[in-house]
């Protein structure tokens, strides 16, 4: 009885972190998508300067632990704009995810046969037009499986934004465990919630994959 009650209160308490975790993940994925697609385009179709910038972004960001980037961005950005911890943490996570997503999309762009770009240019499309209406729709579909993997990684990396004070699932579990001194219960609940969230993410993305499959 005591145990069950403890479990229920613990569960309810940690559950309030789910909204924050989902929020951070969605913002980070969206920001990362913008960075990722832009950088991948620069890397594959840009001039040498753009290529170099995009490559440097990808190499450097992927070489640094995510938590370090979050910490630096929070305290550096905070100088110029007064961002709340939630936004600073989410944007930093998105900036990081962008580097990984740029690699995913780079591969996807490359997987679209290069003859299509030549053909599109031959019928008078500009480079940007060709990317937008010929290459990108195919590349996005090709990128989906790998992107789904990145989505689950970002979901779990969202635990890191707590270093700047965002009370997501894991931090709430730590708070409960500090109060009740029952780490096993607290972290089991956290694990269960992450499991549910990850399964949901995978399901949603698989639906997208099926729905928008390339008919080749």
């Amino acid at each position: 009885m005591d145990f069950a009650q403890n479990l229920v209160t613990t569960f309810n308490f940690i559950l309030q972190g789910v909204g924050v975790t989902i929020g951070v993940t969605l913002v980070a994925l969206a920001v990362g998508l913008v960075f990722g697609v832009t950088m991948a385009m620069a890397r594959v179709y840009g001039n040498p300067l753009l290529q170099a910038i995009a490559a440097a972004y990808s190499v450097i960001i992927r070489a640094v632990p995510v938590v370090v980037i979050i910490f630096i961005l929070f305290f550096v950005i905070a100088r110029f704009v007064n961002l709340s911890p939630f936004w600073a943490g989410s944007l930093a996570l998105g900036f990081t995810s962008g580097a990984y997503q740029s690699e995913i999309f780079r591969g996807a762009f490359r997987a679209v046969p290069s003859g299509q770009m030549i053909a599109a240019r031959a019928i008078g499309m500009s480079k940007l037009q060709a990317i937008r209406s010929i290459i990108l729709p195919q590349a996005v579909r090709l990128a989906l499986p790998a992107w789904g993997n990145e989505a689950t990684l970002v979901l779990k990396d969202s635990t890191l934004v707590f270093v700047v004070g965002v009370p997501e699932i894991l931090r709430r579990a730590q708070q409960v465990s500090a109060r009740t001194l029952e780490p096993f219960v607290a972290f089991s609940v956290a694990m269960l919630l992450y499991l549910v969230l990850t399964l949901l993410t995978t399901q949603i993305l698989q639906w997208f994959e099926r729905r928008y499959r390339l008919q080749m």
Partner: protein
Amino acid sequence: MKKRIAMGLLLIAALLALSACAAVQPTTQQPGAAPAEDSGKLAQIKAAGKIVVGTSADYPPYESIDADGNFVGFDMDLIRAIGERLGVEVEIQDMPFDSLIAALQEGKIDAVIAAMQATAERDEKVDFTIPYRMTKDAFAAAQDSTLVMEKPEDAAGHSIGVQTGTVQERWVQDNLVATGLTPADKVFSYERADQAALDVANGRIELLLMDAEPAMELAKQTGLKILLITESTAEGGKSIAIPEGASDLKAELDRIIQELIDDGTIQKIQETHGLP
């Protein structure tokens, strides 16, 4: 061609790294560099109508979060009492203990109350108010331990656990290891105190040295016994940390803390949280 691209990449990487350093460097220098801004800290807080206070809410009975999500504990009641006398609202921001000083330096928070002791190292980066509570440490051992301790040095030669980055860890290093009383491989540093307590309970190590009140709470939960409570390993009292050079804020907080000590308010708050 390939070589040139590689060179270009290296150059850009170097530039980025440099600019990152340049951007980060002021972090450590800012406190001394901007006295003009700091001297207005108190006015700034009063104008905003609230003081943003950082804490690490995983350290009962000083600070924790109850089942309804409220910040509770001795420190939390104290800072609210201080806010009341200051005439401003208190906004509490939860962070890991390690992030608190950096957040304070960067102006993300106005003060830190987290059972923090004003050690010399921390004092170089931020300022501290007068102590609001003196600190005691406790040595704990397993229930069936036959060890008897009359003074901290009696721990010599026994395996001992401490929390990383704490004053207790430094005391053990300075007074037991450096003096040759305890071999270095008999000292174990844990990320959190409760992990050390579990190892004592399981017989992996003999002793645990930490803050007295959380130690008593832990001892109750994990079935340890307290061998000795002492002031001589502690470095002083717990203080509120404020930005370096915020002298007006320090003067005001010192005055209020002294007032709260003198009129018995702190004594009362201590009693509600079962602190001696």
